[in-house]
């Protein structure tokens, strides 16, 4: 089981009964941050030994464990988890945009292990323009998932076999899920050329 901190050892996923919540770190002036508690486990210790200072923190929040790593360590961590720790299934790759931070994007990998029945999240912080390494070499699932992250956020993955847009049209300009892309914004030029109308709004 992943978290030995919470009593009653639920599986990382759904609580059978609510775990005692920690109150959110409510500092009145700076913005509140996530009330995560440190994650003490064999897996966390092994990762810290192996990767040293490339791992920032290992924490758990609401029974879900995550580690914050440096961007260049993401794929080596995935590889280590797959080969040595049985985390053979990549669940998801996604990104979150925090425009006020200098390192704007939070790239999140979620992996799951069938034998252990637990999930781990690996979060890395990357800035606009940084090209992280692709995870396709480790998990084939990453192919379309990374294409979607590129399409929606503009994060290009170095070494990806087929880095092009997947959901938006091929020649769309702009990255829709960024926070500075308004919800009624559109690529005016594409709409006029391809649909023949002034605007889709």
């Amino acid at each position, binding site marked *: 089981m992943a978290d030995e901190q919470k009593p009653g050892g639920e*599986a990382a*996923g*759904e609580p059978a009964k609510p775990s005692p919540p920690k109150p959110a770190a409510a500092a009145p002036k700076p913005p509140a941050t996530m009330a995560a508690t440190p994650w003490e486990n064999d897996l966390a210790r092994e990762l810290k030994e192996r990767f040293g200072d490339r791992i920032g923190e290992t924490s758990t929040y609401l029974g879900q464990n995550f580690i914050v790593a440096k961007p260049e360590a993401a794929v080596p961590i995935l590889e280590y988890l797959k080969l040595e720790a049985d985390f053979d299934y990549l*669940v998801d790759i996604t990104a*979150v945009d925090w425009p006020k931070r200098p390192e704007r994007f939070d790239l999140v990998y979620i992996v799951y292990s069938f034998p252990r029945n637990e999930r781990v999240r690996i979060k890395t912080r990357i800035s606009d323009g940084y090209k992280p390494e692709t995870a396709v070499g480790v998990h084939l699932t990453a192919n379309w998932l990374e294409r979607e992250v590129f399409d*929606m956020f503009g994060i290009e993955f170095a070494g990806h076999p087929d880095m092009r847009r997947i959901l938006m049209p091929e020649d769309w300009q702009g990255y829709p899920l960024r926070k500075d892309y308004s919800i009624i914004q559109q690529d005016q030029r594409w709409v006029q050329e391809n649909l023949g109308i002034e605007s889709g709004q």
Partner: protein
Amino acid sequence: MKAASDASMPDSTFLDSTELVLNMGPQHPSTHGVLRVILKLDGEKILGTDCVIGYLHRGVEKIAENRTWAQFNPYVDRMDYVAAVSNGLGYCLAVEKLLNIEAPPRAQVVRVILTELNRVASHLVWLGTHALDIGAITPVFYCFREREEALNIFEKYCGARLTTHAFRIGGLQYETYEGFEQDVKAFCDMFPPKVDEYEALLTGNRIWKGRLTNVGVLTADECKEYGVTGPLLRAAGVKWDLRKAQPYSGYEKYDFEIPIRQNGDTFDRYMVRMQEMRQSVRIIRQAVENIPEGPIMGKVAKVIKPPVGEAYVSIEAPKGELGYYVVSDGSTQPYRVRVRPPSFVNLQALDRMVRGALVADICAVIGTLDIVLGEVDR
């Protein structure tokens, strides 16, 4: 004119005259939605495929950032529109996890009943359309006739048949209507003989077996590499179901089996889904026997403001592992809702499944993947 998508095709020049690039366009009766598949053929043999998706992209994740937590609930049904109740369950469970609350027991049992009815309804659509693609025209009428009964129960419960918006964050909005238990029990009694009928029509049929065995084989290792979940994984021999591995909403109380098969071909997936329908009826029967009394809504504030944090919650939707990664920044609107769609990830495996097969098998394989483009594109 070289198509931009040729970049992913296997090595071959465009001028090679034995190869044909055929477009199975977004408007096609067998692609279950607006899916475009560009096939590279050598006569009838498929050398490679390239899926072009995004024709139904509605920007659901962007909409989530502009609505409040409760207002986003109706949008979630519209992704996998065939199994809308499961989508709603996943989202409500994710937000409840962030709020660190749980729905009361009565709400949990009713949620299980509706979700399993929804699983049956979704598999009926799959069976009808899959058989129709292969060429068996009769089962689709029978499947939709049974689906009508399930949709009538949804309509009487929450007011809509397809985009149900059945659950709310923290529990349920509507109390069960008078006659809910009778209707559900009548459905459970009516349904298993119908599954026997579908099996009589299809399972022993030599044409069905001939078209489905050894088509679209995906072994267990390939499934894990491609991240494929759901009935495809179970047909390949991996006994894994999120309802048993990481139970949610009270599933640990029910006694049901996980059907698995060994070969991982299309016929095995058909058998797995038929068995899943039977197991769903078993769960519904157990659940409707004793629905506990009590409140249907947990203690949720009028205005939902989860504390700063994030959570990833996934459920076993009829199509696979449906996951919601919700990030909250403490305000009334979600900061980021990421939906991990099972159909999107399963569709990646299409290329591996049809290499070397014949053109007629493409329809069978797309049918067996059970994709819904609303979920693939969101």
